[in-house]
């Protein structure tokens, strides 16, 4: 069953169309990456799914039923990019209060908060105030608040920004664990290496439109350029006179080759075997999501240059 089904969702602000007829489905237990340059409409889309904005048109189905922001707020956990907590409130009280706002009873909320605090080794924090916490600590607290009420749909906007590797791994493990237990996770980020590592499924948005939708491996296959890296012993050939491939890059002990249309990797191997050269390795080079991302959004006025890895 699809936990979330979005159909022809549209939202415009005074001057521009922020989300333009977006449709997608999310299965239960999947980790889903929502990608796109700044201003692509990701946050607007998320705000519609969390009930902060009402869509102009289109429909949102949550677990097969039309989404009702008030009743469904208990089924959704949202950690916005705009991080914040009540600075003057004690941490334990605050977590319980926010869970109660979601609709949990006080005793359930208190029990759950204590459980999570033990799991994250935060037991001593209960009576501290948020203003006494470091950025990383308050982010951990925010994650706890987001998932406390066991939502079936968890939306995380840049969840790892500002976390050290140890804490990032802690959160990452929790995300895997939640997905295993059946929660669906929407993960919005610019950090492509995290997407490749964590997500099963991605959607790429640009200028309010969906421009790519698929599994991570599927997308990579879709955008592969038939590039292979071949490791060779001895001196690298200066030229390769053949119709089956072209050399597009040279490294210390290997060549990067692009196989011409209609030919197969075997043709490359046969070429070097026929020349009597020893082959040490042969691997396909798949494009990174980062490359795909840049290729797709580059040149559009709203896109921003992303850091090249």
């Amino acid at each position, binding site marked *: 069953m699809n936990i979330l089904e979005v159909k022809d969702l549209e939202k415009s602000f005074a001057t521009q169309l922020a989300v333009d007829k977006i449709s997608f489905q999310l299965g239960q237990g999947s980790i889903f990456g929502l990608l796109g340059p700044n201003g692509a409409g990701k946050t607007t889309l998320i705000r519609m799914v969390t009930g902060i904005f009402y869509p102009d048109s289109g429909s949102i189905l949550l677990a097969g039923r039309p989404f009702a922001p*008030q009743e469904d707020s208990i089924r959704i956990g949202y950690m916005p990019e705009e991080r914040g907590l009540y600075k003057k409130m004690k941490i334990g009280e605050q977590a319980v209060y926010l869970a*109660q706002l*979601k609709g949990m009873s006080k005793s359930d909320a208190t029990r759950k908060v204590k459980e999570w605090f033990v799991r994250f080794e935060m037991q001593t924090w209960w009576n501290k105030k948020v203003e006494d916490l470091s950025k990383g600590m308050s982010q951990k607290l925010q994650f706890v608040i987001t998932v406390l009420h066991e939502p079936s749909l968890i939306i995380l906007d840049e969840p790892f920004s500002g976390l050290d590797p140890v804490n990032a791994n802690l959160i990452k493990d929790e995300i895997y664990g939640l997905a295993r237990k059946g929660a669906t996770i929407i993960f919005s980020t610019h950090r492509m290496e995290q997407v490749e590592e964590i997500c099963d499924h991605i959607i790429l948005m640009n200028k309010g439109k969906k421009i790519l939708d698929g599994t991570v491996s599927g997308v990579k296959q879709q955008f592969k350029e038939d590039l292979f890296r071949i490791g060779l012993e001895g001196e690298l050939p200066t030229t390769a006179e053949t119709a089956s491939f072209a050399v597009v890059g040279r490294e210390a002990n290997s060549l990067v080759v692009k196989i011409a249309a209609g030919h197969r990797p075997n043709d490359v191997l046969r070429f070097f075997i026929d020349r009597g050269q020893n082959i040490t390795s042969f691997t396909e080079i798949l494009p990174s999501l980062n490359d795909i991302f840049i290729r797709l959004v580059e040149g559009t006025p709203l896109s921003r240059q992303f850091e090249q890895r």
Partner: protein
Amino acid sequence: MKKIWLITRREYSTRIRNKTFLLSTFLLPLVFVIFIAGSVLISTQTHTRHRIAVIDANGYFKDYLKSDSAISFDFSPAIDSTNYEQKGCTAMLIIPLLPEGQKTNYRLKYKKQLGLAGTSDLENRVDNAITDHLIFEKTAISRSKLDTIRHNSDIAQIMSYEDLGKTAKASNSGISFVFAYISGFLIYLLTFIYGAMVMRGVMEEKTNRIAEVVVSSVRPFQLMMGKITGIGAVGLTQFLLWVVLLVGLAILAQGFVPASTWKEVQELQQAGQMGNAGAALKVSDMANRLYGVRSAIDGGTLLVIFFCFLFYFTGGYLFYSALFAAVGSAVNEDPQEAQSLMLPITLPVIFSFVIMSVAVQDPGGPLAVWASIIPFSSPIVMMARIPFGVPGTVPFWQLGLSMLLLVLGFVGNTWLAGKIYRTGILMYGKKPSWKMMWKWAFRNS
């Protein structure tokens, strides 16, 4: 409903436990009392008794200008305009022959000015002395006899009654004025002190950047309603504590201050009132009127007035707080932006005071009727009309409509605040205009 209650409770309990709240609640009355005590102390310490030398060409002022604690007069012929300072006088009063029916100047000479109060006090005394002298000379009636006549002639008092066909009901514009004024003043005071607190409270989620999390859990209307009632209750709590503490401290102060100081203060007050001859009379007059009012209003009417006072006071307070919340949801972290948006909200309160003074004169007039129905002015104006009689001057339909509109107005304002909040909150750092707020309120978001 449950979520509103949750928010109300959080707003109330976090604010009540706040250190600034505790400090201001308990320190302010103390500062107030210290300030008053200090100024009383200073005025008793620095109070000087003027000694004024008089040269009188008429010869009768000696009998009428009496020395007291504030001014003493010296008629000794040894003092003249050259040596009055050496003889210890602060000023010299020179009165020439005063022919009847003709304006004549008399002069006051001084090195150091007496001060405005001292001069007008002196002028009054001289005027009274002339009147007394003339009355005595023309009619042979002494001043004290005249005072007795004046006092004994104050025996007639007006009582107005509302005609209800068979029966008549006592009414009095005095009490309606008092009630309307207290109600209006309290609403004005509380909205001014705590309106800004509601406004800042509404901005709290924005400054703490938690708005998105909260709005994805509760509707903005619920958030606004919870905030307005929660912070409103904090305001009422603090205000009541202040009243209790001030009354308590005042009682306590009476025990501590030595009796001689009290006497001195009372003397000072009397001396101050001497200049204003009618003041003492006014005070007794006021007391009389209040007493008359109390006897004119029966228990049932008093109950209606009390109930209406509670209703309109809370209603007006919440109505205006909701307006402040709307402003708070429109502005961002900069409180200065709020200043310009706050003025249009406080103006109706001031207009209501003006309309109230009209309503007391003419409680059945169209201005009074409409102003007592429209929510912006109804808390103040209706309170001015109710003491005139509820089924009579104020028909039930008017009272009902006015109350309904006030409640609807409060809910409507809260709804408006919520609407503005939903869109306004997520736009950081942009200054809103009235046009934009209108759009936020009435466009689907």
